[in-house]
């Protein structure tokens, strides 16, 4: 069992890593060249964050390429498949708005390394949230087709939102010592942000539903295994090689 800080760093790092990996799948395939460049910028920010957070937990590459699903601690939301552009945007929308609030608070962490990473990353994710919010509005208040698609995308992602605000025994002591962020306190502001953008997008708030959880303890969806088998292929096929 790893110590609390290590575990916390893994969660933060895995969130960024897995979403960065997902967005990397878009590279070369986006609806427009300009959008391709934007998505890649977001992916690059996330891979950079992952490298820093995982670096707190140990050797970042070893952690990224040599753990199996049970040891990955990302939230379920980020491992969800890209689907169409709307599904990707819905995922980014829920996640980046959360990550921005999280990093804003994390800049106050008593752990100087976490605070420093958050200080750099909060600017990145503020931009990600802005991009995602605007696309939510364009797609929601665009054509009938885009509206149907974003409703579907949001419907897919919605059940994974609650997990973002869970606190467990690992994080509780870190909150008490001022190292970790108490995400429960971010819920209200996140709800407001989501509601504001959905309203601007002329979209209804999705109906509450049973939350899907488990990522933080390694209980993932089926998607993560496939993502890892692709991401880790070289390191697994040639153990011990340096690249």
């Amino acid at each position: 069992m790893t110590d609390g800080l290590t575990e916390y760093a893994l969660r933060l790092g895995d969130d960024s890593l897995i979403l960065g990996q997902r967005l990397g799948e878009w590279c070369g395939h986006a609806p427009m060249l300009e959008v391709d460049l934007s998505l890649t910028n977001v992916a690059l920010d996330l891979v950079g964050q992952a490298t820093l957070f995982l670096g707190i937990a140990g050797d970042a590459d070893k952690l990224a390429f040599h753990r199996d699903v049970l040891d990955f601690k990302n939230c379920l939301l980020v491992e969800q498949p890209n689907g169409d552009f709307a599904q990707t945007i819905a995922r980014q929308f829920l996640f980046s708005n959360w990550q921005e609030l999280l990093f804003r608070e994390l800049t106050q962490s008593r752990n100087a390394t976490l605070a420093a990473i958050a200080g750099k990353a909060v600017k990145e994710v503020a931009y990600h949230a802005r991009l995602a919010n605007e696309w939510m509005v364009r797609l929601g208040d665009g054509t009938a087709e885009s509206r149907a698609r974003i409703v579907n995308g949001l419907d897919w992602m919605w059940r994974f939102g609650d997990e973002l605000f869970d606190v467990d025994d690992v994080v509780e002591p870190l909150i008490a010592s001022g190292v970790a962020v108490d995400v429960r306190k971010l819920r209200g502001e996140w709800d407001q942000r989501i509601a504001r953008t959905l309203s601007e997008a002329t979209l209804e708030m999705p109906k509450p539903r049973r939350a899907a959880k488990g990522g933080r303890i390694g209980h993932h969806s089926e998607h993560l295994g496939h993502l890892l088998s692709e991401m880790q292929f070289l390191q697994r096929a040639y153990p011990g090689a340096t690249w």
Partner: protein
Amino acid sequence: MSKEWPLWEVFVRAKNGLSHRHVGSVHAADDRMAIEAARDTYTRRMEGVSLWVVRSADIVASDPGEGAALFEPAADKVYRHPTFYSIPEHVKNI
């Protein structure tokens, strides 16, 4: 075929104290997207601190066919340049 997103001209201020300079163009459906596309295309290597985007269709340009009429009359107005005036060597600070 659906309608192409309009073209925008992109201007970047490299740092404060300098003016915005034309760097290229992007396609975007609206002004926010144009700023973002400009940011994600033209400032990935710390090229700037400020962006302007202008719809290409809104730019009014001089006609090269009138280039002679517009610009050549300035050629013989050499008295607008300080080197036109001869001042003796020993006179300083002028």
